[in-house]
């Protein structure tokens, strides 16, 4: 009898999904962003400025956001996404151009580099507003690692991708971020291959390497901040967001965030506007609010992300200066590369392999 409940619950879910009412003018401005990326005072500030509520819907993984935004008429006025996802969403025609709408905001957001993607990703530059920047590197519990691998270089992915090292570190906790393209790109970097060339051979090599270390990986997770906070890992492939947190917040002095010499990722989250049947009434207002100097910096500081990785910008706050130094160490900048977009089919193939890897069925 208990399991009949599943059917009823399923019907309820389907029933709740079915109406999906169209957004009306009365619906408040809605932002779609990473979970925990918008502090309460920003909500309050929005209400204070505009006299309206701000709704923030959140996601735990970029794939989740991609899936949500891959469907037209997503109920958001503005969304935060990794830049490499945008071309695939454009292939589904689910985004609308926003660049012309933010051109007038130059004065509002002086640190904004609107033209940063013009040459790099010309096809998507009209659809994105550069937002937050960060890196994907390795955080190490130096004492723990040294205790187990006294001679191992601490600035190399070999600490993680060499199965012998992984085996040695398994007892103190190894964690990998749940982001298939980033992990594969970094694995290829470790293997000395082009991190953006996902040929069959390259994939086989990368997954071969990963499958050897997977038995020693304690978690593939999006929740590294708590793991670091609790001292559950001694080495992790992480985004800079949790990677710089111990330093910024002053906990876990044993942790060091490094950009390995084989290569690390410079990622960019951008603002996009989902395409809707009716033009968004809040888009312009929400963009103005998010990109305003005060709010922009607050959001970046809260996410431990950089507002800009480019050059010396005197306009940056001390907090931004500190974050930029930790996320993009000046002496390691040459190790950074950006991910190139994958097609939908490539991404599907990659994800399928990634899931098989996680359940130990990759051969």
């Amino acid at each position, binding site marked *: 009898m*208990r*399991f009949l409940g*599943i*059917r009823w*619950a*399923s*019907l309820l*879910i*389907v029933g709740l*999904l*079915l109406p*999906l009412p169209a957004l009306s003018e009365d619906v408040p401005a809605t932002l779609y962003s990473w979970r925990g990326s918008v502090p309460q005072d920003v909500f309050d500030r929005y209400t204070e400025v505009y006299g309206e509520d701000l709704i923030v819907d959140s996601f735990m993984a970029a*794939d*989740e956001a*991609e*899936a*949500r935004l*891959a*469907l*037209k*008429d997503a109920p958001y006025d503005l969304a935060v996404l990794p830049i490499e996802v945008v071309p*695939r*969403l454009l*292939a*589904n025609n689910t985004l609308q151009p926003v660049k012309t709408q933010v051109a007038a905001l130059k004065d509002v957001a002086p640190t904004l580099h609107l033209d940063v993607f013009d040459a790099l990703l010309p096809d998507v530059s009209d659809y994105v507003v550069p937002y937050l920047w960060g890196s994907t590197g390795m955080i190490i519990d130096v004492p723990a690692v040294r205790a187990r691998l006294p001679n191992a270089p601490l600035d190399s992915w070999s600490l993680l991708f060499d199965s012998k090292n992984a085996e040695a570190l398994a007892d103190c906790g190894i964690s990998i971020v749940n982001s298939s393209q980033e992990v594969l790109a970094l694995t290829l970097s470790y293997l000395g291959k082009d991190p953006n060339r996902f040929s069959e051979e390259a994939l086989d090599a990368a997954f071969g390497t990963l499958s050897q270390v997977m038995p020693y990986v304690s978690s593939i997770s999006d929740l590294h901040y708590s793991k670091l906070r609790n001292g559950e890992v001694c080495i992790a492939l992480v985004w800079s967001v949790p990677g710089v947190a111990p330093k910024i917040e002053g906990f876990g002095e044993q942790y060091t965030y490094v950009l390995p010499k084989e290569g690390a990722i410079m990622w960019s989250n951008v603002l996009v506007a989902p395409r809707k049947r009716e033009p968004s009434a809040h888009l312009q207002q929400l963009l103005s609010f998010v990109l305003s100097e005060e709010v922009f910096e607050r959001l970046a500081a809260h996410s431990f992300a950089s507002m800009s990785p480019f050059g010396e910008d005197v306009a940056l706050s001390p907090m931004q200066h500190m974050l930029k130094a930790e996320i993009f160490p000046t002496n390691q900048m040459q190790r950074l590369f950006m991910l190139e977009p994958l*097609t*939908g*089919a490539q*991404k*599907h193939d990659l*994800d*399928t392999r990634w*899931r098989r890897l*996680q*359940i*130990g*069925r990759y051969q």
Partner: protein
Amino acid sequence: MARLRTTKRILRLRSGVALSILLVASIAAMWIVLAGREAVATQTRNTTCIDTILLSLSEMAIALHQIEDADNVYRVSAFESQIRQAVVAADEAHTALSDEKGVNAFSPAAQDILRQATFNPLQELSEVISLAEIVVDPAEVDEATHTAANLASDLAYRLMPFFDRIRQYELEAAEVIADRQVIYGAAALLVSLCGVVFAALFAHLPMEQYVLNAQRDIERSQRAAEAASEAKTMFLATMSHEIRTPLNGVLGLADVLSDTKLDPDQRRMLGMISSSGNNLLQMINDILDLAKLEAGKTSLEFVDFDLEMVCRETTELFSGQAVRRNVRLNVESAHSEAGWYLHGAQGAVRQILSNLVGNAVKFTENGTVSVRLEDVPGPEGAPRFVRLSVRDEGIGISPDSLKRIFDQFEQADASTTTRFGGTGLGLAIVKHLTETMNGHVQVSSVVDEGSEFSLVFPVAKALARKQASKTQFTSTFDKRVLVADDNKVNQMVAQKLLQKLGCDVQLASNGLEAVNKARSWAPDLILMDVRMPVMDGLQATRAIRMDASIPGSATLPIVGLSANTRGEHEEAIASVGMSGYLHKPINREALVAELMRHWTTEDADGLDPNDLPSGLSA
């Protein structure tokens, strides 16, 4: 006719166009119904398929999520069972959608989603199914099962909005199709209405006008035909009068001449003159009678009469002819409870019988002609019908000729006319007269054995009792008779006949003379021609009746004379106060009968009975 043919062609064309429009509308309506049915069936299949996927995904998502927290093997087993069922249903739906045909059946918006490159729902569904199958695979270790369940559950949750959106698009497409069906249906209805309006405006109404015009043409033609018939009748009547007037003279003078002393050759030639004249007169009468019958202008005079007596009298008229052809005439009547004194069209019966007996005698040689009279039994309450049959033992009629024996100018064959003479109008008159009496005539015949003509007609009971016939006796009249006629021959005929009857005769050539003679000479009786120059007989009669200076002007017998058939002047004659009527050419028998009607037996003196016509004898 050219106009009518053109109209007919155009009407047919327009009717064809109207019918084509209606046919197109009907076919379109049928197509709409069939297309709508197919569209509904397709939408139902699609929606059912998507519903199955949605339900399976939600079942899997919940079960996969709960299986991670299952605290004992029984619950895990139950969740696995649930997942297996959902996997089977999802897999079947996925298979149905996997080929291009399955995707093509969806609306364009739904197809966009089903074919989208990023996060393709079908590919992801396949992945969910695959992961779920790993979860329920008994060979898998717990850790892999949990990870797979977690991954499958996440993916299933992400996937559901896509299929839900597809479902929405399908429902919207169904609404669009339904609306389109209504529009198409309305269009088909509009086309039908156009067809109806077209048919009404360009086919029905013109057709109605066409029929009305045709009807008017027919009525116009009918009136023209009636006018032509009227003119023909008038022409025949006029010609009849014009021919009979001199013929009256010929026959009358022949009659007078026969009373003079002649040698045998002269008497034989005079007989031939009379015979030829009578034949000619009969022919003229037949033509005139037929014309009147066809024009429907014949009104029968119904009187009380002795039918058996009429049969005998009429048959007797042919006795002389019968003797010459060695034919025995036989009249027999069956016993009748009601008797043969009855009410009917005596004149018509006499004419019919005269034609039939005349024919029978003419076509029979050395045989018998039998006239038989009998009642025709009928149901109780029905009118009384009698059958009058004339049977001969003559040459008979062939079966082919029998079919047209009653047609005008038809005889059994061409040789008949040559051999026996006649106009071929007699039997046509018989048929017309019989039908005018509401009776019918039929004939049966065997070639070389004879023929039998039978007519059956209704009669009524006599209105008055039969009076005993008065015995007439012959005499001469010592009376003064004024003869008023513009035709000198007719004057002479009448004068000679009257003088032979002992009358003193004076003549007048017009009505005015007749009035003056009536005043000056005081005649006992006037024979007054109806049509005369200066003053016609009707005016003259009216003048005499109103002239008090004429002795007994109100009661003076004035007998009208006319070459027209009886009845044509009858009403006019009665209205001006004429006392009687004689048909020209006057024959002695009719004249004597008319005189005796006006004068008592005392007025007659010593007339030779042999001079009286046989029909007047008892």
